[in-house]
């Protein structure tokens, strides 16, 4: 189920393209392998392009390619794997990616606020978790650290 980072439902259709599948029309998502192999064909077609990445991605190596993607999808095979939290932060604050960041896969409602803080805009997750999204996104209001959402620590914010 697809929601934004306020917990509202989103209706979008992106086709998740396998590495072997022929290039279709429309908005598609591709793996890094596909991107590296088919760069020119992918850029010369019509439709929006999204990149799917996993936690072990060396995202810095893709710095010069990022402006070609309207969306980057950070895939979570397991909710306990926190590498994407660092990748999101790096994409936002170091590599200056200004398109949409989406977390997708095995994600708990309780992680959404943290993901929002590191720069994620939307979530593709199980319905059982999505139904608690609004509650979970709003239950903690105090933020001690800087992240993609806020430039000051609590130490700077206190009078």
């Amino acid at each position, binding site marked *: 189920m697809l929601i934004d980072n306020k917990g509202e439902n989103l209706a979008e259709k992106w086709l998740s393209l396998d590495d072997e599948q022929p290039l279709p029309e429309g908005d598609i998502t591709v793996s890094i392998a596909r991107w590296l192999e088919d760069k020119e064909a992918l850029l010369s077609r019509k439709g929006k392009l999204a990149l799917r990445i996993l936690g072990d991605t060396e995202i810095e190596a893709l710095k010069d390619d990022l402006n070609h993607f309207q969306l980057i999808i950070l895939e979570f095979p397991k909710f306990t794997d*926190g*590498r994407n939290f*660092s990748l999101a932060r790096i994409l936002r604050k170091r590599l200056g990616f200004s398109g949409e960041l989406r977390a997708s896969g095995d994600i708990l409602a309780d992680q959404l606020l943290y993901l929002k803080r590191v720069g994620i805009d939307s979530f593709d997750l199980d319905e059982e978790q999505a139904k608690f999204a609004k*509650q979970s996104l709003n239950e903690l*209001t*105090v*933020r001690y*650290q800087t992240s993609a959402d806020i430039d000051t*620590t609590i130490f700077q914010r206190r009078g």
Partner: protein
Amino acid sequence: MYQYDQYDQTLVEERVQQYRSQTKRYLDGDLTDEQFRSLRLMNGLYIQTHAPLLRVSVPYGLISTRQLRKLASIARDYDKGYVHFTTRQNVQFNWPELEKVPDILAELASVQMQSIQSSGNCIRNVTSDHFAGICPDEVEDPRPWCEIIRQWSTFHPEFTWLPRKFKIAVTATQKDRAATQLHDIGLHLVKNGQGDVGFEVLVGGGLGRTPVIGKLIRPFLEKEELLAYLEAILRVYNRFGRRDNKYKARIKILVNALGVDTFREMVETEWALIRQEEQLEIPQHEIDRIQACFAPPAYKADSGNSAELETQLAENRAFSNWFKQNTSEHKVAGYKAVILSLKARGCPPGDVTEKQLDAIADLADRYSFGLLRSLHSQNLAFTDVQESELFGLWQELEALNLATANIGTLTDIICCPGLDFCSLANASSIPIAKEISERFDDIDYLYDLGEINIKLSGCMNGCAHQSVGHIGILGVDKKGVEWYQITLGGSSEEDAALGARLGPAVSKADITDAIGKILDTYIDLRLEQEPFLQTVRRTGVQPFKEKVYAD
């Protein structure tokens, strides 16, 4: 001590509500066991052999009497009338009901306590020297820096789903009372050649299955760089630490695999980038505000009455034994720190009853400015007692069974809950500690042995730090039977080292005898005043081995 402001208080209150709703979702079937497991652990709740176990944070071991009375009332109302102090200065309830834990958290929040990140694969409660603030040779009080780290690490958006748990300790004296070399990050406040105070940074220490001594990653870090540097270490670990095997997931494994030099380069590269991207320096007014919370109490200018104390010491051997073992020097003349022994004969190490907690709170109010400390060694301390009041305090502690004069001796055993409570344990530990404390209870014998610590864990997760005990005892299971492996010569202090294995495990029936033989060997071998640890290091384990396995 640190006082919550509106941000801190709001945060813990919101956390109570959050955890209440997580518990409800679990009970309603909206969270699986596995999902709820991660969430409850990040709130210090384990499911143990008999009941859940709730670990409550005591940040850097500092606790007020108001908080202590709250722990006592929770022990009465929600538990079986006692609590357990841990090696990381925290406090545990052994018998709470899962459904009632949100109510316990609400009680804790009312006295500025919480259990956030006291377990789970996240940054844990930061620990420190239990004598912080009173040591004559302290570079600077480490507690304000601990508090800054506590806040920075609480609900960190990026570092809450780490490969494995992450522990940080901070000290500021030569003597290491916080086992900093066995932490994921150890921070030492030091002065550089210019007289500036900053941090020496160690990384990659840890116990458990693969015990490793921390390595120096940076000899001097400017204070204003603390958070940027911590973020750099954590980011490298979060990205590159192993996640395929939980026994290889601690930062120590990453540091060893890369080598500390490569790891350092990665951290320094990351640090340089963070410094360009983020403003993580803490404003001076905020440092001042936090430091002011730890200002010294109103010591009396002329509190020394040494003549009277000398007389009391001369006339009462039990008192002078206690004075020698259980009190410690203080930077202010006329004051002493007093350690309350939670290692009375036959009692489970670190356990305190609710009646004792209330009584301790009353004593701390009368004798030590209403504050106390919990120790890595699973004891408690009053850090600011006038020398002229020591005799009165000793008598009151005696009546509470808290004045056993055994601090630093063989029976000051560090011990995990073991098979009696813990679902991970392979062997019992509390009964062994009890047997040892009963067998070797002759106080003159203990004093003759001098400083020896026994650390006793019921499984190789090593909660009692047996790998760094002068005598380490590790319970193992062999085909359903409890056996004990012995190591000798370990230390968690400034001379940190891992103990050497003595030989094959000994049976439960023989373990106390084996300890006796080790002690006999030491007495035979020691030179003059040579402490146990030095003897073992001088002779190696061979002579001990020959004696223990003689038959």
